């Protein structure tokens, strides 16, 4: 059997498959579907300083080969995550998690990062910079190299644990943002977050989603994600976590050939709770089919 292990920012993963933030809660609820210890790791629900309800409903719209969501970062707040969610997770998961954090100001990012990084169960920080900057006119941090760099610097200053910046695809040149993060000491980048999209209820002549717009994910975005991972992996030296529309073992291999060191699986978990288990189980056979002895060796293997 081929080797599936990879190293992500100095930490060994038994395989590159990582359930993506917002599709896997804080992990423990998925333990009733399968043993989540088989995962490379997983990225927890985006956590903010304060508890958040998020956006009004409807928050979900179906699309051809995908879905739009506008959940709006619903989460119990960093305190409750540390006091309640992580202890629950400990009962069913031995590994390190990727702590996904969000903020509406640079200070909030730093504060949440410091609290989460201090937790022994946290291996990596994944910093979602797609949220609006309330002090910067509401523009997303992730759409400006300067704002992205500022968040990176602030988070970098509060922890020695690996810091991975999660990039928005809703930009003209994602490599410019990735390089700005790398220059401020990011240990990795992950991409793509969802693509801004919209559906209209034709009968009612109003948007399906209460928030009007939301993030598109699912197989529909896979080629866009793959292209951005490919471009970014060539633009930076730090590892890239590739995600966007991955639903099968072949997609994992394709992402890795594009330059991903590890691969996130998002929307697929929502349609099939056992998606990641099945992808991991299918990987050895897929590797054999393509003559891959070690997944680590095929990272960036596409010309």
């Amino acid at each position, binding site marked *: 059997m081929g080797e599936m292990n990879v190293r992500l920012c100095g930490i060994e993963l038994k395989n590159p498959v990582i359930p993506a933030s917002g*599709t896997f809660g804080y992990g423990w609820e998925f333990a009733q579907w399968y043993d989540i210890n088989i995962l490379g790791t997983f990225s927890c629900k985006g956590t903010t300083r304060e508890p958040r309800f998020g956006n009004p*409903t*409807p*928050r979900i719209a179906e699309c051809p*080969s*995908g879905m739009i969501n506008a959940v709006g970062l619903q989460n119990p707040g960093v305190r409750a995550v540390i006091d309640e969610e992580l202890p629950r997770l400990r009962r069913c998961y031995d590994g390190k998690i990727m702590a996904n954090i969000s903020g509406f100001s640079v200070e909030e990012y730093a504060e949440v990062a410091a609290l989460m990084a201090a937790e022994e169960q946290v291996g990596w920080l994944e910093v979602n910079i797609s949220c609006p900057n309330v002090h910067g006119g509401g523009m997303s941090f992730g759409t400006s190299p300067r704002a992205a760099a500022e968040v990176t610097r602030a988070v970098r200053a509060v922890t020695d644990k690996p810091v991975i910046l999660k990039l928005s695809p809703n930009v003209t040149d994602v490599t410019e943002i990735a390089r700005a993060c790398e220059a401020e000491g990011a240990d990795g980048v992950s991409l793509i977050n969802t693509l801004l999209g919209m559906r209209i209820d034709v009968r009612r002549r109003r948007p399906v989603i209460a928030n009007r717009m939301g993030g598109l994910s699912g197989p529909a975005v896979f080629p866009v994600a793959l292209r951005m991972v490919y471009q970014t992996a060539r633009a930076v030296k730090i590892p890239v976590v590739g995600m966007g529309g991955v639903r099968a073992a072949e997609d994992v291999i394709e992402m890795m050939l594009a330059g991903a060191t590890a691969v996130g699986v998002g929307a697929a978990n929502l*349609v099939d709770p056992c998606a990641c288990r099945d992808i991991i189980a299918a990987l050895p056979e897929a590797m054999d089919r393509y003559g891959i002895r070690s997944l680590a060796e095929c990272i960036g293997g596409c010309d």
Partner: protein
Amino acid sequence: MKQGFYTVLENEPLTEQVFRMRLGGDTSPITAPGQFVNIRLAGRFLRRPISVCEWTEGELTIIYKVVGAGTAQMAAMRGGELDLLCGLGNGYDTAPSGASPLLIGGGVGVPPLYGLAKALKREGKDVSVILGFRSAREVFYEKEFAALGARVTVTTEDGSAGVRGFVTDALRNAAPYTYTYSCGPEPMLRAVYGAAATDGQFSFEERMGCGFGACMGCSCRTVTGFKRICREGPVLRREEILWER
């Protein structure tokens, strides 16, 4: 909660737009009336959540309305297999019903009340039912409820069958009851909440992503905090409902 494949044993129209599908497979994940299944359809990304009407060992019945391309695809099925997430949501709790519960359903909110009526009758309760529809053409399951030994009142908005008006018109004239269970569109639930004389349980509908608690797509605010309609719901108790949702 369990994922499995179920055989389509029967799929027949009850009205112009409402169909009943009997499915064969493992029903052990279903633990209470009012729970739902989430159905994967070929070529559709998201599953379709549909409430369970009734179930026995090895067989379950769902009743659904054709409202879009996905349910139209279901209605066209003749046999074959469906991938289901089964036994989702909390379902109704029969414990607080008292001796003579009143069940109130509107349109495709009626089906889960059938399984509930069956469970309550098994417990020896004196069950009354108000079933609301737009017109006589849309009425279904009146006889089935009656066959369980429940007292049935049908209401139609145009008066073409039963009592003219809404379920609340029948509710105001109902014989004394000890508890209410309702399921239907949100305006109906609000009206029942306002008109009911007792405590009760209300089953809500919301657009869902996953149906099993992962995506937070169907969250609502309640007196006791945020709840997911798919997981801590779809049934909420009267005292926890916040109508600002």
